[in-house]
């Protein structure tokens, strides 16, 4: 049942590093994160990797396995052949701290730039009434475990550091869509989605959707509908006329 697998793991810190080769035991039913842990316990005690739940629920162990963004805990070793060399590298879009651990503070910065849930001031806790069908749209996006692999894979920032300041990434554009679709949210998010958070950069290649471990349809259900909402606003002739005549920006808060 068990065999020796060939692993190449990126190791390094302080901006320098290289792939290191390991030969390591693999047992039936194991996942890539198990093998990383075996390396820690037997060959490289200081090998750095983030992990928590080991059940695909916390989104900590994001890494690139043979070049593809994956959760280490959800990538079964049985998906590889026994003679295959498995290459494990850190997420490329974020600066490496050490080995497989990256500095993901970009994501926390972006989270803070999205205005929070804004309920009407006259609804008290306990008085909220919503239909299941109306909450389901946002619920899909709230399944997000913040593994940040969608932001990692997005070509707008993957090799374009210069786009980072003006682009929230799929994760946080989806957060805007989630709030915009919340039955009780009263904030206007359409202009800022486009102008401040870079929705327009997205050209719907669906890479984010493809890597989402929660199988959230980020592009189809969040980003495209959000783009449509922006377009409806921006190119609505009546709104345009109103803005011209009354010299005000009705759509801006």
């Amino acid at each position, binding site marked *: 049942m068990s065999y020796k697998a060939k692993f190449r793991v990126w190791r390094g*810190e*302080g901006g320098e590093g290289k792939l290191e080769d390991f030969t390591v035991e693999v*047992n*039936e*039913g*194991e*996942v890539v994160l*198990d093998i990383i842990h075996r390396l*820690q*316990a037997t060959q490289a*005690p*200081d*090998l*750095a*990797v*983030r*992990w*928590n*739940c*080991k*059940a*695909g*629920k*916390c*989104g*900590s162990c994001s890494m690139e396995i043979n070049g593809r963004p994956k959760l280490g805990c*959800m990538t*079964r070793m049985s998906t590889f052949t026994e003679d295959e060399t498995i290459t494990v590298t850190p997420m490329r879009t974020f600066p490496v*701290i*050490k*080995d497989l*651990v990256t500095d*993901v503070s970009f994501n*926390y910065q972006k*989270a*803070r730039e999205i*205005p*929070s*849930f804004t*309920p009407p001031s006259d*609804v*008290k*806790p*306990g008085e*909220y*009434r*919503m*239909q*299941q069908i109306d*909450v389901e749209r*946002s*619920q899909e996006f*709230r*399944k*997000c*475990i*913040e593994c940040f692999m969608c932001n990692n894979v997005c070509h707008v920032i993957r090799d374009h550091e210069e786009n980072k300041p003006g682009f929230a990434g799929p994760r946080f554009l989806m957060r805007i869509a989630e*709030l915009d679709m*919340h039955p009780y949210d009263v904030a206007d998010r359409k202009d800022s989605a486009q102008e401040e958070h870079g929705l327009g950069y997205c050209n719907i290649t669906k890479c984010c959707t493809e890597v989402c471990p929660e*199988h959230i349809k980020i592009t189809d259900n969040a980003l495209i509908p959000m783009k449509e909402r922006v377009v409806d606003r921006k190119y609505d002739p009546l709104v345009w006329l109103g803005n011209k005549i009354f010299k005000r920006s009705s759509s801006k808060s």
Partner: protein
Amino acid sequence: MEIERHEYDVVVIGAGGAGLRAAIEARQQGKRTAIVCKSLFGKAHTVMAEGGAAAAMGNVNSADNWMVHFRDTMRGGKFLNNWRMAELHAKEAPDRVWELEAWGALFDRTKDGKISQRNFGGHEYPRLAHVGDRTGLELIRTLQQRVVALQQEDEKLHGDAEAYIKVFQECTVTRLLKDGDAISGAFGYWRENGKLILFDAPAVVLATGGIGKSYVVTSNSWEYTGDGHALALLAGAKLINMEFIQFHPTGMVWPPSVRGILVTESVRGDGGVLKNSDGKRFMFDYIPEVFKDKYATTEEEGDRWYTDQANNRRPPELLPRDEVARAINSEVKAGRGSPQGGVYLDVSSRLPATEIVRRLPSMHHQFKELADVDITKEPMQVGPTCHYIMGGVEVDADTGAADVPGLFAAGEVSGGMHGSNRLGGNSLSDLLVFGRRAGAGAASYVDGLAARPKISPDSVDAAKAEALAPLERAGENPYEVHHELQRTMNELVGIIRKAEEVTEALEAVGKLKERARGVGAVGSRIYNPGWHLSLDLRNMLLVSECVAKAALLRQESRGGHTRDDFPGMSSEWRRKLLRCGLSPDGSSVTVEEKVQPSMREDLIKLFDRDELKKYITEDELADFDALVKE
């Protein structure tokens, strides 16, 4: 080397549900608050909670109210609970859940648009507010986003988002510091770069969760190394109920690498049944005497209950967790287990596939991805897994204050609320209710201080030496000491305990403590897991000693403590709490007995005499009779 220094009013250690709710409260009361957590913000173990938050809102069955919830909680804990905590919890849980909704949480709905509530083991009515089977994630995300909302407010008001509430993520606290008797701060290190950090703060709220990493088979993540339990003990606080550990009845048993990962109780709440290798629904054979009149005795009645709860009793698959875990353990021991050493949990023959995917999406996903099992087509194999510790820091129910001035605790790291066994769903509500209370308790403690306690340079030097020691010696690999501790606790202080085995465990723990003093960590201080584990070992060993010592002393079986050599529940023991403290020289754990205070009159009157007599002594029963006559 320079140690980074920060001043705060309140430092909250842990960023799970309890920690975040405490920090939000402290900040809302105007206190400068730090949240210190070992993982990234938003990754805490709370995300693993699946079933829901128990709150008697009465949205699905209007007969529910706080008194019913209180009774269920006391019953679940076999009457060992701190009744004041159980009372506050039952009364305040609905407000805490509704508040989350105002912060953006999106719970599943009833037909009339209210928060839907689901059935769970030990709860008389459908009571758990939930979002599919990912309620913990919703809770953590909502609280995380509430923290962000407060930071946005602070940015507008003060031009600095982190002026009043700041998250120190991937940062571990290794010592609490004191000025005389009172807390003066906390010392730790950044996991990312190994730099040392000092918090100067008069109030510390512990919200560090549990201790599961002392066991091999556990549903807990690496963070659960008993840090808060140990920090409290080292600071002079007391721990109670440490012998009570909940083994969740349904953890995954295969493949080996995911052994112990949780299978939510909602599977049973939504109709799933437990079967042995003969295909028999064995739980009907395991209804204990104290619950005989509350559970169905035939499959037909149990099945009818799902649609008609007024006229039928609930199926025994929904007994409290300790009962179900022991039953599974017995079936496997009797040779009626599944091929991989568990029993079968089947929902595939009970609900249509689409309904299973809708109600249990993450279970469906988890089994498909990790075990290659489609739960809409075949049964799961499940077995008990170390899940939760009922024991923890002894606190004042109303404020979360520990014995040490300035020290507070909430959530799993605190003790008393759940007695000897926690009901499913009572954990998420516990976090919210007592997280808020501990945050408020810490804020008002700070308000009442005449002078700020000072940090002594000596205590900082000692903490620094302790933290850096593993890096400075070439000793044993810490992973080996950890593995041996896990095996010891699993095998000798597990679900079923006996005196010889627990004694053996204590000897083993003693030797491991020796070895832990000699472990070394190779490599640099930058994100070095071997070093981190070397430091965590101190905590796991201290906590394991508490568990084993208390388990050896309690000569009865109750909730999460089953003694093979003392199988019965004793009403004399119900009156006693075991209280762990640190020996005067700091080298080991001492345990003393403490009398459990009697329940307040209006609360005990909520129970029937027939039920009470199963738990309380003759004397107590006489008092009750006198009380009812008045």
